[in-house]
């Protein structure tokens, strides 16, 4: 069964074509890609979420073309129904429902979080159920116990800033531009992660919740003090020490969650899952604890259509369908 998936929950408009039977991705297109801008007349929008309505057609066309598939061959439509900006979600969701309605195809609405939870299943080496999933991005930092392709329960989440957001805000503080998460990680490679001891928010012994707002403030206070004294900032050390504080909490809590679940498998998802330091330390921890770690490639970590196709395929098999008048939602029932 060929699945066409559409995702428009935040900045990017994304589409994918997925072969359900073979469980292979035939195309995975994101609006920030160069091909799309070429198609779009070379205009790079200031804010992509403003442009979903202009991006949706070229992105879907590009996905079908790259897959070498015509719309006639598509048998299932899947789209992100929430969470996110309702105005953005409705562009992709309404477009998807319209395609399905005219073509007489089944249509499935998928939770964006489910996409990230399942994204490691897009790779050759995929976790068996059950597993513990850490979804970590600019908008979310959550831990889930994954019982099957359609059953997940939340074990913890951020109480304030998401991990990716903390990276972006520290980048801004250090005047590295915004969004600057990847820049912080790159600079951290040349720094000493033990140079500065920034606080780790554990939030109580058994808590699987996260908090990164205090860490952001601690970095800020540290930087302000040095600036006031007129001392030079060792940017690489600050980046490395900050990153270490984030990663250490993520790794420890994820391993604790797996242990609490008696799971032997951990899967990562979300944009920050492609952070190299997180991958390295998580792998080390898993080796130590006898756990298997599954991490999707970067293109499946960031927001993408492939994960929505996969989640849609699973939800379809579980009998889920949308009605034509179903609405998008802003808050995830999963989170």
């Amino acid at each position, binding site marked *: 069964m060929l699945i066409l998936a559409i995702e428009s929950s*935040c900045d990017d408009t994304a589409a994918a074509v997925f072969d359900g039977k073979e469980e292979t991705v035939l195309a995975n297109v994101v609006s920030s890609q160069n091909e799309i801008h070429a198609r779009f007349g070379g205009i790079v929008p200031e804010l992509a979420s403003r442009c979903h309505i202009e991006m949706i057609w070229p992105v879907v066309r590009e996905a079908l073309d790259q897959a070498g598939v015509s719309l006639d061959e598509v048998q299932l439509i899947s789209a992100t129904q929430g969470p996110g900006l309702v105005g953005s979600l409705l562009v992709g969701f309404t477009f998807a429902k319209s395609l399905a309605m005219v073509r007489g195809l089944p249509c499935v609405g998928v939770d964006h979080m489910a996409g990230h939870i399942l994204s490691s299943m897009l790779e050759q080496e995929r976790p068996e159920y059950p597993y513990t999933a850490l979804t970590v991005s600019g908008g979310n930092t959550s831990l889930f116990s994954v019982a099957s392709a359609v059953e997940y329960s939340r074990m913890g989440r951020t*109480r304030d800033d998401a991990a990716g957001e903390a990276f972006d805000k520290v980048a*801004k503080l250090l005047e590295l531009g915004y969004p600057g998460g990847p820049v912080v990680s790159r600079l951290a490679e040349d720094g000493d992660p033990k140079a500065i001891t920034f606080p780790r928010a554990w939030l109580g012994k058994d808590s699987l919740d996260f908090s990164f707002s205090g860490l952001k403030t601690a970095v800020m206070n540290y930087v302000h003090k040095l600036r006031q004294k007129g001392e030079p900032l060792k940017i690489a050390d600050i980046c490395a020490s900050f990153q270490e504080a984030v990663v250490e909490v993520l790794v420890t809590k994820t391993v604790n969650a797996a242990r609490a679940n008696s799971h032997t498998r951990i899967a990562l998802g979300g944009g920050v899952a492609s952070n190299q330091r997180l991958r390295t330390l998580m792998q080390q921890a898993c080796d130590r604890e006898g756990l298997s770690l599954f991490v999707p490639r970067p293109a499946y970590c960031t927001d993408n259509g492939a994960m929505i196709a996969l989640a849609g395929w699973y939800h379809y098999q579980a009998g889920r369908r949308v009605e034509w008048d179903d609405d998008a939602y802003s*808050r995830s029932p999963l989170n």
Partner: protein
Amino acid sequence: MQPGNTASLPGAYQGHCKDMRTDDNQPLSCPGPMNLDQLSLFGRQLAGMLLPGDLLLLQGELGAGKTTLVQQIAQGLEVGADQYVSSPSYALLHEYSGRLPVYHMDLYRLSGEEDVEGAGLLDYLNHQGVTLIEWPDRLGSLLPDQYLEIHLAMVDEERRRLTLICHGKSWQLRCRELERLKSLPGAME
């Protein structure tokens, strides 16, 4: 924009400066820092006076405590503990349901009013909930006339200076009420 106050109703309250008046949104500067507990109490008490359709603009640098204040206001608006009030920087908007619907926006990533409208955020300014906006300068000419402007400035790690400016009749009428909030005495001085 509307003048920030009228002759009989002080438009700005800041620390303990009851005799001061503002002209056309001129923020006043005077001492009166609050510690973080007092700021939290203020957030919860302010929530008690909020009406459907109210708009609060939050100004202050990174780490000034804007999101913390929103969390306290949300708590005061009976947003359940199961709905964690987290930063909307990435998603632009988070919605919560309490005594009134709460819309929390962070416009930092937007370039201006076209982005605000384009992202579909304008519709929320007309909703019958409480809308809280960080980085409101991005609203440009979309800014309505009635709103409460809240400035948070860092004094040091533990203390913040709070400035309130009432815009439009709806807030000017509540200015006295704001002054009487127990969390805002001059006792901090």
